[in-house]
């Protein structure tokens, strides 16, 4: 199937069925695809984890969460980006690359400074900024009571149900 053109079919949250041309790989909507995907990808995720034992990693299908100190998390994410591309021909969705900082400890400026310092300190982390998405593509979400902001711009989920200032 790899490389064969096909038609993807999926149902959206409104129950509407969509058909989309697909240039390669499996059919979304096939129940086994989730298993097949996890079986293929998660061993690779695990091998990268072995190189970053200070990081706690949660993988849920194509979502990966890395919990660690910022410098360690960025290093882990940078290596994961490289390995996923080389081993599995997968690209990270860079506009959806999120860095969550908890609590009220960080203003937007503080968060931005911490990110910039971490990237400058580790050349491998700088690789995350390659490919044209740059620093403005990072979502640094400073959480407090009911609000969050993205670095450089007001942050609003396109399809989310939660409002943000």
């Amino acid at each position: 199937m790899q490389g064969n053109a096909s038609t993807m079919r999926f149902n959206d949250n409104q129950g509407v069925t969509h058909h989309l041309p697909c240039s390669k790989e499996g059919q979304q909507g096939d129940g086994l695809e989730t298993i097949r995907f996890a079986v293929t990808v998660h061993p690779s995720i695990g091998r990268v984890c072995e190189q970053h034992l200070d990081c706690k990693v949660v993988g849920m299908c194509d979502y990966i969460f890395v919990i660690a100190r910022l410098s360690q998390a960025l290093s882990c994410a940078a290596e994961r980006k490289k390995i996923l591309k080389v081993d599995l021909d997968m690209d990270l969705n860079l506009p959806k690359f999120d860095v969550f900082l908890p609590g009220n400890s960080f203003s937007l400026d503080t968060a931005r400074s911490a990110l910039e310092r971490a990237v400058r300190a580790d050349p491998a982390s700088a690789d995350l900024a390659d490919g044209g998405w740059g620093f403005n593509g990072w979502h640094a979400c400073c959480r407090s009571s009911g609000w969050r902001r993205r670095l450089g711009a007001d942050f609003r989920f396109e399809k989310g149900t939660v409002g943000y200032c």
Partner: protein
Amino acid sequence: MHRLTNAHKDTNTRTDAIVQLLLANHVNHDVSDPLVVVQLDASNAFCSVSRQPQFGVLSAKASRPYDDRRVQVGDELLRPRTLDKY
């Protein structure tokens, strides 16, 4: 199995809930190197992942190098025994 995806209108709410749970017990933060949660998402993941690694996992043997050559051709790969029936 629940899959977090933008196809669900409240996915981001659920993601937020998970992140809050993960960070709930960490209250002391080093401003210079804080504890964070980084969320990565693969682009068009289900339609782009290569088939060859899947066959490698199913056969429990690498047919090409992986993981920056830390896994070589012929090395044994971990395979869940529950996959035997497939």
